[in-house]
């Protein structure tokens, strides 16, 4: 049985793929995007203990050199996450695939399946393969929400049990991607083509940023030229909520102008995209 660090499970999610789905967020991500909304999912806890004294409900304790989190006492005030200097969270549960399936069985009559996100869930590909096999046995579907860092073609057995991938393409310009995510995008672009070729590309997600009109347009142009009308394109409007200071300094504390955002949508459609949704 395999295990993975789970940041949280949302029993009902309407924004992680088609229909109502259970969304599972795994911990750790190789990217550090400017606009990350949940930066506490980026790194694993190093048990420094800085968060422990500030917990108002005494749900955190230091035992044997490790931070221990008592879920039953936690009031989810997120004080620990706000104070953590390492982009991590002490509230991580190490769960087996069976434990995740138990959670799914509580809601299975209300959802079409699961979507695993993160962090970057492809940091745990063997776990996903095992989990998705069990989900399939329940006649439900499994989707991956990924930043494309890990090459999907290296995991053919996972691809067999995965019903589709929602892929973030943060930027198609390699240099800009490097600045924005602190990593290059070579594997992302390969994944885009690969997933399309094996018919597993459920959706491509592009975050449209303030102050980077040229990059926004370039990413949309390049993605549409590859994907054409073969997968849904979801344009996401930059919003400052949860974004840390580094990101706010670069992108500002206002959401992307709504008129400009709608213009991007029309632009994608004019280039020959199929279904374009904007959120």
């Amino acid at each position: 049985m395999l295990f993975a660090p789970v940041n949280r499970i949302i029993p009902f999610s309407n924004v992680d793929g088609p229909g109502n789905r259970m969304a599972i967020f795994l911990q750790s991500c190789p990217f550090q995007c400017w606009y990350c909304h949940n930066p506490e999912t980026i790194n694993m806890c190093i048990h420094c203990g800085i968060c422990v004294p500030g917990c108002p409900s005494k749900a955190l304790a230091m035992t044997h050199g490790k931070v221990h989190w008592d879920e039953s006492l936690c009031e989810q005030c997120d004080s620990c996450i706000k104070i953590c200097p390492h982009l991590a969270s002490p509230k991580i549960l190490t769960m087996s695939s069976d434990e995740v399936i138990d959670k799914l069985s509580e809601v299975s009559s209300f959802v079409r399946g699961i979507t695993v996100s993160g962090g970057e869930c492809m940091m745990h590909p063997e776990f996903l393969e095992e989990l998705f096999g069990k989900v399939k046995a329940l006649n439900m579907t499994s989707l991956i929400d990924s930043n494309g860092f890990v090459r999907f073609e290296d995991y053919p057995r996972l691809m067999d049990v995965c019903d589709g991938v929602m892929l973030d393409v943060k930027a198609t310009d390699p240099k800009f991607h490097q600045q924005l995510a602190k990593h290059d995008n070579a594997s992302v672009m390969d994944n885009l083509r690969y997933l399309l070729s094996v018919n597993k590309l459920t959706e491509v997600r592009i975050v449209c940023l303030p102050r980077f009109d040229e990059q926004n347009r370039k990413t949309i142009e390049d993605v549409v030229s590859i994907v054409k009308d073969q997968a849904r394109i979801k344009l996401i409007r930059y919003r400052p909520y949860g974004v840390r200071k580094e990101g706010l300094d670069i992108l500002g504390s206002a959401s992307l102008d709504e008129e400009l955002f709608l213009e991007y949508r029309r632009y994608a459609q004019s280039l020959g995209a199929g279904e374009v949704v904007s959120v």
Partner: protein
Amino acid sequence: MSTAYEIVTDTTLTYHQQFINLAKLGENTDTTLPYNPEFLKAKEAGMICDLFEGALPFRPRYILPDYSILMKNGSKFLQLDPPKDIWEATSALMIMYRHVPSVSSFPVFLGNLDELLDPFIVDEQEATKAIGLFLLHIDRVLCDSFVHADIGPKDTKAGRIILKETLRLQTAVPNMTVRYDSELTSDEFGALCAEVMLSTAKPSFANHKMFSAEFGEKNYGLASCYNGLRLAGGGYTLPRLRLANIAKEATSIDHFKNVLLPKYVDLMTEFMDLRIRFMVEDSAFFKSNFLVKEGFIKQENFVGMFGLVGLAECVNTLMGIEDKKKGYGNNKNADDLGEEIIAHLDHLVSLHKAPYSENSADRYWLHAQVGIERDGLDSSPGARIPIGSEPEIHKQIAHSGRFHKYFPTGIGDIFRFEETWKNTPESLLDIIKGAMNAGMRYFSAYCENNDVVRVTGYLVKRSELEKLDRKEAVLNGATVLGQGSRDMAHALDRKVTK
């Protein structure tokens, strides 16, 4: 109760509202019915509530005419020929609605509108205009939130037009239900209903399979808040046990179940018997009303509704639980006791032979009453979990599934969703399908920022609440009830699903 002087000088009441209040005042001067002094004592002590139905019942509380007879035969009394087109059909219905009585003097059931109107849809544009005006007339003339229309389960042109116009008009009246069965209702129509519900708090979804099994597929309708009743029949009367208060009198769970419950069930069934016998045997209604004479309703299709409120607080009191978040709805032992109480109550009620309940197995049927504004925070509606203590939505639904089977004449729960759900009605439909499979009878939802919102079982407009807050008269007679429930029972503060 206000005095006549207070009623006629109250500037927040419209003329019609004053008129209805004065009539009630007059009715209550009558002392014909020999109510048991023990019953009156229990009422005074807050153990039983008669929901202000009035001292002398001169019509059933809820009436569900079979309007298909109007479509087929017209009406002799109303001097109407069978309608031949959409204008005549909507006009005939509007005329008839004016003559259907109820406890509120407004018709609480307008029929299965899509089935009634679909045969008349020829030109869609013309039909849209006719149905739009029809719905507008209903909101402005039948201005009471307990006026209720049904649609479904089949996907029809008329159903779609009704939904489209409902979305456009954004009115609180009529309340609306779609009778939903995933095997009969198309996903497209189901998702359209969910989309309109998120924006206007209606239609709610009724479990068509469940109601069909109890009443027969074509033999029921949803009236008033969420009351499942026999078509061409209705509900005679609806008093309610106030379980939260009865529990306070109990010395133990055993005392509650085996001494107090039987005592109050006896007092309430006797009270219902008395009223129903008077209605059927003495009042003019079942003898001379055109609805009876022309076959729109039949006496044997009526049932007495045995109501209850405050199960949550009852259970918490009996178990000595003070923190609501650790009690009924969030605690397996409390839920088990809740179901044990309801199953026992259902058994006690079934032992009583109800008069004139020929098509209802000669018994009274349970109803989870949604509460009234003055219940405040001490008594949650029916078997609902207290507002502010709701668990995650799937747990709340599973909880509902345990209790809904006991209440064929009405029970339901309401869920508030964040705005993003408006973009994904198909996701909400997934939840509704799961809820129906889990045994949920009636599912309502709305989005947090809507103007039209569901209070406990009925709808009000926030904009009308604001007018009332400024002491201005408002058209809808139920807005004042919504104001009370908002202020005293926090009815608009239910948990939001993100």
